[in-house]
């Protein structure tokens, strides 16, 4: 199967054609927003990063920024610097050059403060939008599409309706040669052996054990024993009998295929098929990591409801129950609650999600996009 998308000079493919106005640091984020709001056809990212990072954290922030600025859905990027940040444009430019991603730079300190920087930025961004509009779509095999699988605001139906349905959609995409990434390492606790058995080789199996052990250790260093309290009394009252059962309800959103690779937050997979991204379960930070890892779009299952979208990609919402769907219909793309109502099955909802993914890849808007959602947040552990 194919979709109509953009083939970039970077070698990536895109399902959107955004001009991104990207602040390299929190200090210039408002200036980036001012530029973007004056130039229709651009999007911007507000984030709290860019300064005060050290070690692996700093690497993670740089990797995320490069993944977003060089994303397949991004035609070109205008970097908005303040001028003295720890991750200045000069840190990102060599990699953007290497990728072949069109970019330009403005600086608050060097371009006349806020008014001068905005004026220059608007001039450059207008030209970028004009250039991007000249790009044409072409047929691209579905094997080049990367889907992010996310769940948040879960409820008792999440593991019974929406997550298994999303898993079926992920299996269908992978059967077409495509890629699906699921994440949220803390929600894999107790399923180490089950996941490792699905690993393509011993290295990936070991990576799975290491990622889960590390998540547990990190929580323990914060004084929290996340395994020892599972399943919680509330979970047990709700019918969950073991940590395996609880975690399986989450990881089923990635489907049932062989796990090909474990990647870090915002790291591009080297393999196709099913990938685990070892990362935080915080929704917007996780979405940003999935996108920076190359996901073209995200399917997000929710039982309690969430409005979250993205500035550069479609985020399709799947409700786990019809009560939520009826309360938040403007935000929900697919209602897996029909399975409970007897009006659908895991298979029919899985197919509906797959069809929506294909529709979005061809240019249909997700509800989050139509509503103007553009949530974005880079994950890092500390600022010093």
């Amino acid at each position: 199967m194919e979709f109509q998308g953009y083939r970039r000079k970077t070698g990536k493919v895109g399902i959107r054609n955004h001009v991104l106005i990207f602040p390299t640091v929190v200090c210039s984020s408002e200036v980036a927003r001012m530029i973007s709001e004056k130039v229709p056809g651009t999007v911007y990212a507000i984030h709290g990063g860019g300064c005060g990072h050290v070690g692996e954290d700093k690497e993670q922030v740089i990797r995320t920024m490069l993944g977003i600025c060089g994303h397949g859905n991004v035609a070109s990027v205008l970097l908005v610097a303040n001028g003295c940040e720890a991750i200045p444009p000069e840190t990102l430019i060599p990699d953007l050059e290497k990728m072949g991603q069109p970019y330009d730079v403005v600086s608050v300190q060097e371009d006349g403060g806020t008014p001068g920087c905005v004026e220059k930025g608007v001039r450059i961004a207008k030209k970028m939008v004009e250039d991007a509009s000249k790009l044409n779509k072409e047929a691209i095999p579905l094997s080049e599409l990367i889907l992010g699988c996310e769940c948040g605001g879960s409820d008792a139906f999440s593991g019974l309706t929406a997550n298994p349905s999303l898993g079926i959609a992920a299996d269908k995409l992978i059967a077409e040669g495509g890629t699906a990434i699921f994440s949220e390492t803390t929600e894999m606790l107790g399923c180490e052996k089950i996941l490792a058995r699905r690993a393509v080789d011993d290295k990936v199996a070991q990576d799975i054990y290491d990622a889960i052990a590390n998540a547990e250790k990190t929580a323990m260093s914060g004084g929290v024993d996340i395994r020892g309290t599972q399943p919680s009394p509330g979970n047990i009252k709700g019918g969950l009998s073991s940590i395996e059962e609880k975690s399986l309800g989450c990881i089923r959103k990635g489907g049932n295929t062989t796990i090909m690779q474990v990647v870090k937050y915002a790291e591009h997979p080297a393999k196709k098929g099913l990938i685990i991204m070892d990362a935080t379960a915080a929704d917007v930070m996780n979405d940003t990591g999935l996108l920076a890892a190359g996901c073209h779009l995200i399917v997000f299952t929710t039982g309690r409801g969430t409005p979250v979208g993205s500035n550069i990609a479609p985020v399709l919402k799947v409700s786990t129950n019809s009560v939520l769907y009826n309360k938040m219909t403007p935000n929900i793309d697919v209602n897996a609650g029909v399975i409970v109502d007897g009006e659908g099955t895991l298979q029919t909802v899985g197919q509906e999600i797959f069809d929506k993914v294909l529709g979005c890849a061809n240019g249909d808007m997700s509800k989050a996009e139509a509503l103007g959602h553009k949530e974005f947040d880079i994950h890092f552990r500390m600022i010093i």
Partner: protein
Amino acid sequence: MKPKAILIDTKDNVATAFQDLSKGDTVTVSLEGREATTTLAQDIPFGHKFALSPIGLHEPVIKYGEAIGLATDSIGAGQHVHVHNMESQKGRGDK
């Protein structure tokens, strides 16, 4: 008609109640050509599991096509399957 319960994987030996079910109810679940009909031996609250077939002592309780724990008692078809007659292989944190 609203289904009373759901079977998530064809390999599963338990189904999960979609509503509060009563002892004596006959429940049919189906998935990809597999169909199982069970008469409930006990009341099963919403979100809780019941056995589709007998599960012997120390045999795996299977949901999502995977062992979610081992039976700590022999469990008959239609019986409630929960922390009183199955246990995680990873240990349980609350006891």
